[in-house]
């Protein structure tokens, strides 16, 4: 168990180091950071001073170590575009994205898992067919089209919900939240549905496939042959065995919610990380881009670690031969 965790942690560190290196390389090789920070009319002496102060005259391995040290201390540099420390920008934007992702993930799981289990158990009922048809449409609907449709229907035609922005935010000092006011929830509804819909259909289809797979296994047949009640066979034996993939999916899903939040935030002008990185890409704002890269990688690595640990709790087989599994 301990060996497994250590191994996973080491892997995580390797991934983080390589991502940091890529983002460091971005800094190093893309344009001249000095040019981006001072104006065209700065004197050569001023440039040299800044270069010296930023440590840009040192050999690159030393600079890389400085870079990593800064990241660990939470210093990501100055945004070229806004001239503000990137960590302040992120601290400002992170709560908006996190709340959006959290609400969407909850929606997608709370609806997707039961729908997947239902369609897996009742293959031929009309409701299953309906769910599956909807899911196929859901998987083919691009996120931004869902958002546009919602805005058109509920924002423009019915005028029930606000169509952009994050209203009713309460500042808690270290975090800003829209959970505490009605306005906050109202402006959260459409973005989170937009973000959740695709994931919901994906989860439903995967759970269904997994459920069908598990229902075909010998131990389910044997459970039936022992005369266990359908409830016990389906919700005790089958469901627990589909849990392992559910955990994986949830992990991957939070990752892809982070990615897709870029689109949702664009459609609804939601002031989160996604909007930040998109603007950074358009303006070639390297410090913001590379920080985003490091931050996203960190979140992914963190999620993967949690997923691995959850496997451990669910599946007793891993507790014994975790080492041999971890090795490949």
């Amino acid at each position, binding site marked *: 168990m301990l060996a497994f965790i250590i191994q996973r942690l080491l892997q995580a560190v390797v991934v983080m180091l390589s991502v940091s290196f890529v983002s460091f390389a971005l800094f190093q090789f893309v344009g001249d950071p000095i040019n981006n920070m001072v104006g065209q009319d700065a004197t050569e002496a001023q440039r040299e001073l800044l270069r010296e102060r930023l440590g840009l005259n040192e050999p690159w391995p030393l600079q890389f170590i400085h870079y990593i040290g800064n990241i660990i201390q939470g210093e990501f540099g100055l945004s070229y575009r806004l001239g503000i420390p990137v960590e302040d920008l992120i601290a400002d934007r992170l709560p908006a994205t996190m709340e959006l992702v959290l609400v969407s993930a909850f929606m997608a799981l709370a609806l997707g898992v039961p729908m997947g289990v239902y369609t897996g158990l009742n293959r031929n009922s009309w409701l299953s067919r309906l769910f599956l048809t909807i899911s196929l449409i859901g998987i083919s609907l691009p996120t931004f089209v869902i958002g546009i449709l919602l805005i058109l229907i509920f924002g423009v035609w019915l005028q029930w919900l606000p169509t952009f922005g994050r209203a009713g935010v309460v500042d808690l000092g270290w975090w800003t939240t829209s959970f505490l006011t009605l306005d906050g929830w109202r402006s959260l509804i459409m973005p989170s549905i937009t973000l959740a819909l695709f994931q919901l259909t994906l989860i439903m289809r995967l759970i269904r496939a997994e459920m069908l797979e598990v229902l075909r*296994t*010998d*131990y*389910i*047949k*044997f*459970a*039936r*042959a*022992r*005369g*266990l*009640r*359908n409830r*016990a066979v389906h919700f*005790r*034996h089958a469901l*627990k*065995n589909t849990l392992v993939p559910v955990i994986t999916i949830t992990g991957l899903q939070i990752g892809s919610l982070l990615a897709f939040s870029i689109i949702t935030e664009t459609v609804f002008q939601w002031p989160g990380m996604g909007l930040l990185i998109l603007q950074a890409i358009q303006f070639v704002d390297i410090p913001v881009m590379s920080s985003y890269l490091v931050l996203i990688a960190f979140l992914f690595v963190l999620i993967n670690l949690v997923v691995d640990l959850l496997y451990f709790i*669910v*599946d*007793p*087989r891993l507790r*014994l031969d975790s080492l041999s599994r971890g090795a490949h």
Partner: protein
Amino acid sequence: MTTPAESNLLEVQNLRVDFPTRRGTLIAVDDVSFEIKAGEVLGVVGESGAGKSLTGAAIIGLLEPPGRISGGEVRLAGKRIDNLAQEQIRQIRGREIGMVFQDPLTSLNPLFRVGEQLIETLQTHADLDEKSARKQAIDWLAEVGIPSPEVRIDQYPHQFSGGMRQRVVIALALCANPKLIIADEPTTALDVSIQAQIISLLKRLCREHGTAVMLITHDMGVIAETADRVAVMYAGRLVEIGEARKVIQNAKHPYTLGLMGSIPTIGDTEEELRQIQGSMPRLAEIPEGCAFNPRCPNVSDRCRKHRPELQSVDESSVACWLFEDAAVPSELS
């Protein structure tokens, strides 16, 4: 036709199982009739695909769609069970008829402790509190020969060896005291050295509890050792049924003879080992007449056109035109 008798525990009459497909309906079990008396061991033999397992699944109501019973009746202690509602047949499974599957490695749910699986089975079929259910579970583990059951009960299936797992499976099948066990190739997936142990365990337990067994196997040796009566199936049909000793010593149907060929008989030094030519037809390609006719050494025109029914020959029943007049041709005895 068999006549239903009071002492029969299980009666299967003209059972037919088919699979509707787009190229027509495939008949997997065709007009099969037999009975099992209380406490009796009936061996069902045949090559894989002969319909043995499907017959077992049909009896216990676990055919997988699109497979379905399309004819005949199954009676347990005189009561029809082939047309019961889901919930009623569920109450029969485990409590009246137990089942043991081929592969002990996959029969147990890997995510639940062995004890949890035993206790839930016990509690499903009898009103037991947790404590007495656990005690019974430990007793059952001891009874199937698992050492230190108090420890093993809290272990997961992957911590047991194949043979030990099959013992657990047998405990699970027997723990609600069913009157009949359907054992579907219970030893095929095990090491040869362990097979005999499992078979003798099953035999001993069933004798002690008065449980009848329908032992499905392709191994004539197992039958010879275990069964009171034997039924031989070929391509979904019953071709011979009778007392095990008689069928083994004096097989009638050319197919049974072929199966016997693999067991050398003491004394008959001059008899060569028989081998059945060819292989069993696929369901979609079962020939007209006797299904065995393309492989039969004694085939006649009649076999190719008309299908023989089961008929009594010397205390056994055989479906073969060779015995129409009940006169046994000498070269076959």
